[in-house]
């Protein structure tokens, strides 16, 4: 974890909705792993003091864009509004890389990446790394409408099989990612699922994977004040496995894990999705709920050993 000043190399847009900043930050970019995030100070205006967390969308370790990292965002408030005004040569204050990223399979595997809206951002970096290591990558990308799909052209390039869903059928199939999840799992013979997006979507994906005994890693997005483990605000309720054996009362068997340091990537089956945060996440992301399941079984042990998350 470092704090450093980065210089904006470029500001561009993906579609009409999403902004992208490519930032020269050699120390942070070189260390970042898929699923990790950076926490960015949004100006010196003290009316909004907290940093904003952004998962790393891409890092460029070689070539003409070496030592840069890229984030994507939509404008939600004063912080992202500030960032959307930045242009080349602007200086930003970044903290990162933060959190535990995705674990990659040790043996060659069929990996299915399921992303919703802007939440799909870390899956692009993950797809790059998985492909570099020789894994098969398939992708389901969903959003409310075409303009909320994050870079579908790039998805087409990265994936062996790709599926697009939009709720208004403006692109791909009408519906949600979960409507096509099962058939895509079958078709691609997926062995592990990686997912990022709004909580109700992650809940549904986790439940479907649990039914099939498929390992699923999810990256959550939580409101956070610090991003490095001290404020205890970004917690996610996990089943406390030690507690669960000792106590019958399910209410007691909760462990609130910090998504900034113990996450943001969790095993989907460990998360208790029916806490009130699901509904909240929908409010935050302006997405309609995708049917939050009340309970689902525990995730079976993962078939592969995974590489330790980088830091």
């Amino acid at each position, binding site marked *: 974890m470092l*704090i450093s000043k980065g210089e904006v190399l470029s500001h561009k847009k993906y579609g009409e909705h999403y902004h992208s900043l490519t930032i020269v930050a050699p120390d942070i970019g070189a260390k970042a792993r898929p699923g990790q995030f950076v926490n960015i*100070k949004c100006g010196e205006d003290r*009316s909004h003091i907290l940093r904003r967390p952004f998962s790393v969308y891409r890092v460029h370790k070689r070539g003409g864009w070496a030592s840069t990292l890229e984030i994507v965002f939509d404008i939600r408030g004063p912080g992202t509004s500030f960032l959307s005004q930045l242009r080349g040569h602007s200086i930003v204050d970044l903290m990162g890389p933060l959190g535990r990223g995705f674990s990659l399979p040790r043996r060659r595997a069929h990996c299915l990446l399921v992303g919703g809206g802007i939440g799909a951002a870390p899956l692009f970096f993950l797809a790059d790394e998985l492909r570099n290591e020789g894994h098969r990558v398939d992708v389901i990308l969903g959003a409310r409408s075409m303009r909320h799909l994050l870079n579908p052209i790039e998805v087409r390039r990265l994936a062996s099989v790709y599926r697009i869903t939009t709720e208004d059928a403006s692109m791909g199939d009408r519906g949600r990612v979960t409507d096509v999840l099962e058939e895509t799992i079958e078709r691609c013979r997926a062995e592990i699922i990686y997912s990022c997006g709004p909580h109700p979507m992650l809940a549904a994906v986790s439940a479907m994977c649990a039914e099939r005994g498929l390992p699923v890693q999810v990256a959550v997005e939580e409101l956070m004040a610090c991003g*490095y483990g*001290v404020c205890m605000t970004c917690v996610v309720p996990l089943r406390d496995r030690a507690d669960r054996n000792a106590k019958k009362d399910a209410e007691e068997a909760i462990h609130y894990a910090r998504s900034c340091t113990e996450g943001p990537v969790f095993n989907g089956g460990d998360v208790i999705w029916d806490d009130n945060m699901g509904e909240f996440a929908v409010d935050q992301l302006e997405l309609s709920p995708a049917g939050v399941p009340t309970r689902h079984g525990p995730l079976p042990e993962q078939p592969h050993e995974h590489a330790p998350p980088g830091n």
Partner: protein
Amino acid sequence: MAVDLSMKLGALELANPVLVASGTFGSGREASRMIDLSTLGGVIVKSMTLTPWKGKPTPRMCETPSGMLNAIGIQNKGVDHFIKEDLPWLKQQKATVIASIAGNTVEEFVKVADKLRTGGRGIAAVEINISCPNLEDRSNMFSHSTASTAAVVEGVKEALKNVPVFPKLSPNVTSIVDIAGAALEAGADGLSLINTIFGMAIDIETRRPKLAGTVGGLSGPTIRPVAVRAVHEVHRTWPHVPIIGQGGVGSGRDAVELMLAGASAVAIGTANFVTPRAADEAIAGISEYLARHGVPALSELVGAVKLEG
């Protein structure tokens, strides 16, 4: 330029007046990758309770103009974990350690204090958190009444005779001077002023509170004037009582302001979330101020606000 920044708060001796506030720094492990804990005046660790507390559901935080609201519910691993894991590690880092203790009943506070008496060797002081706005029963916050403030302080002081204790008071009271008086009479060695202020925010689209706990504690630069006022009032009444000023302190300038109001030391809170190095920057800022104004000793700043003339 070497300026002597050491301060004495009664029996509590600090190398410099800049501490980090409870609940904004954990036990220092995470921040220690960014800041040398031995350079701080001290670390007021996250409040510890008799048994581990899981804390409240989410959302626990929302940003507000120049500040934030939180309702965390003192999620912590308990006093035994602190004694076994955190304290030895903090001593290794050569940090000055102030243990913050909390509880739901007077008995719980006293039991935590008892455990620290036997297992807490090396603690420089204890802060008594009787002002957390996120306990189960808000209407019974200890620092809302002189009687319950006195009861907790008396019990803790009885258990920790040789350790300076600083009750942390709430600004959500009619007269903080009265509460401070009760705490001092019960044996407090000094005071921590202030904890967060009760606040609430509503998402107007969904008409739901922005915090799962509905009401939370407001912190950040937005509450600094409230802290300055509280410190000033208490210092005017008891000029010799050492005060740890906190509430919206994020820089050397902020620290000097609290000291002029009457604080002998300050604690950086919410600013740690933005940068774990905020305390280092504040220490440098204080030195710069002393040099610029030709102040020979830091203690001359304490309560030096000019009210007349």
